[in-house]
């Protein structure tokens, strides 16, 4: 894929992420899906563009708010929707759900239900790449909340002293569930912490797909060259609540409206049109196709079988 094709693909995946989550949100609001989910609507540029800047063979660790991330990495939407609906055809045979979408072969080492749970896994995966000299790198997604977990400190420090090929990619959406960043840490920019580990750190506008793409691309080159990890802080915002049961009492409607004006999809579309990478018609077609593909995924998931009860005890051990 050349750069232009990548941009088009990126726009496609961002639309898929948006449509996927709008559909999931609809299901949850009506109680049509069991369990819970954490939506990343508003954060699509961050999740998708960062993955698109990697090589297809690179690896990621994803988070509980990971739909945009794993769609960005490249995923079969049918199998993903099936997993959310708990079906046997899902990525995890219906045993993982929204918080555990994984596709090890394709380099997605798994979303994680534990805040900060992916830090160590990413570092270990990066160690494998270094020991086996594969030339692959690992991008570790986490949020502003996870930056306060002890695992963050241990993992970044270890990756730094061992010069492991990891990009620590912080999606700072300014809230750890209900607690605003201004209250949960005493610094404005998480990237400041990079200095404490002796690694480079960069801030990027997480709602600007092109900026995210370029910054991760640059970081990937650095990391791949064996110089050690990089911390990127991608400032973005989730439009919806933390999870399905969130009434948004901790933030104002005005704040949400302000951020909606910075919609990453609209912004990227404007860029693609201005740069004449897409025409209005082509952009419309991509958006329409994304919605259709999500409908198809829903149909696939609905028509898929439930996992047989007999599979309950399978796959605990290898």
């Amino acid at each position, binding site marked *: 894929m050349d750069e232009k094709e990548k941009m088009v693909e990126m726009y496609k995946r961002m639309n898929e992420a948006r449509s996927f989550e709008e559909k999931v949100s609809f299901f949850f609001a009506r109680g049509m899906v069991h369990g819970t989910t954490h939506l990343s609507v508003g954060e699509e540029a961050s999740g998708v563009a960062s993955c698109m800047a990697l090589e297809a063979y690179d690896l990621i660790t994803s988070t509980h708010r990971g739909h945009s991330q794993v769609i960005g990495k490249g995923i079969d939407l049918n199998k993903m929707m099936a997993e959310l609906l708990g079906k046997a055809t899902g990525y995890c045979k219906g045993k993982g759900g929204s918080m555990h979408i994984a596709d090890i072969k394709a380099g997605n080492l798994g979303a994680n239900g534990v805040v900060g749970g992916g830090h160590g896994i990413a570092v270990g995966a990066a160690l494998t790449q270094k020991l086996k000299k594969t030339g692959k790198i690992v991008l570790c997604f986490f949020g502003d909340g996870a930056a306060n977990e002890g695992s963050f400190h*241990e993992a970044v420090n270890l990756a730094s002293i061992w010069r492991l090929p990891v990009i620590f990619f912080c999606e700072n959406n300014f809230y750890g569930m209900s607690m605003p960043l201004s209250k949960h840490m005493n610094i404005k920019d998480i990237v400041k912490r990079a200095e404490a580990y002796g690694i480079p750190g960069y801030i990027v506008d997480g709602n600007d797909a092109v900026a995210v793409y370029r910054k991760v691309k640059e970081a990937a080159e650095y990391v791949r060259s064996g110089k050690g990890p990089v911390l990127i802080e991608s400032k973005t915002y989730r439009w919806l609540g933390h999870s399905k049961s969130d009434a948004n009492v901790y933030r104002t409607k005005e704040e949400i409206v302000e951020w909606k004006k910075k919609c990453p999809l609209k912004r990227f579309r404007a860029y693609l049109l201005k740069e004449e990478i897409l025409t209005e018609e082509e952009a419309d077609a991509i958006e329409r196709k994304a919605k259709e593909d999500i409908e198809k995924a829903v149909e696939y998931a609905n028509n898929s079988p439930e996992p047989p009860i007999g599979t309950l005890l399978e796959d605990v051990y290898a």
Partner: protein
Amino acid sequence: MREITYAEAIREAMSEEMRRDENVFLMGEDVGLYGGAFGVTVGMFEEFGEERVRDTPISEAVIAGAAAGAAVTGMRPVAEIMFMDFTTIAMDSLVNQAAKMRYMFGGKAKVPMVLRCPAGSGTGAAAQHSQSLEAWFCHVPGLKVVAPSTPADAKGLLKSAIRDDNPVIFVEQKLLYRKKGIVPEEEFIIPLGKADIKRKGTDVTIITYGRMAESVLSAAADMEQEGISIEVIDPRTLVPLDRETIIESVIKTGRAVVVHEAVKTGGYGGEIVSAISESEAFDYLDAPVLRIAGKDVPIPYNPELEKAAVPSVAEIKEAVRKVMNR
């Protein structure tokens, strides 16, 4: 037959596996040049180099987490947690990550890692460096738990653990590190999930593992003089547990005592007792099954208090007499 120590046996197992398979590597605090807090890895840094014998910072969460990440991407890490007590800091990596990845990803992950955990009391290190926490890990589906009592078992089981495709918690006994035992010079492995009858007997079955096996065998030898014949079974692996060997023995003897160093409440002994009472062996019991275990206290510093906190040979004998006199 040659004799080597428990620590040497563990070192041999790791060295042989590292020579056999380049994906095996070590990581942990001071495991490199220093040779490990208990000297288990002495000389390995020199043979295998710093890439494969990796000193880590004092960061237990990421030692276990990185082991899981390396394992799921194709390596076979053997990580050391300096004292089993410090697995508390690594718990998320072990319980929520390593143990769950395979199941929650629908069987598409393999996590072939070993976490070596020096455990147990008797070193005067008090409450935070002396615990036997194996029961916690037995309570987590997805983990295997191994607790060898002899140098030969330690070697054969560790080699199996390294070759196993699952996360294995390998409970080593600090007080056994310097104890010698016969270990064959030729290569051998001991499969996980297979108990060993450490002594044949007909009157009472004692099920024990780890450091207590020595005390139980000593009690059994003494009681032979009193005319009581004790069969000693060491399951060696707690998960998976070889229930058959235990049940068969109890059917034969009709009496059972379970002995471990870990505290009694919530200890693995309860699981072994249940395995007996849920089986056909229940119908053959002539006495209640007793548990002789550590007292429900943190391990104290004073040497006499410390000794009193874990089962003694005298207590084991008393329990045997109790089940015999019913």
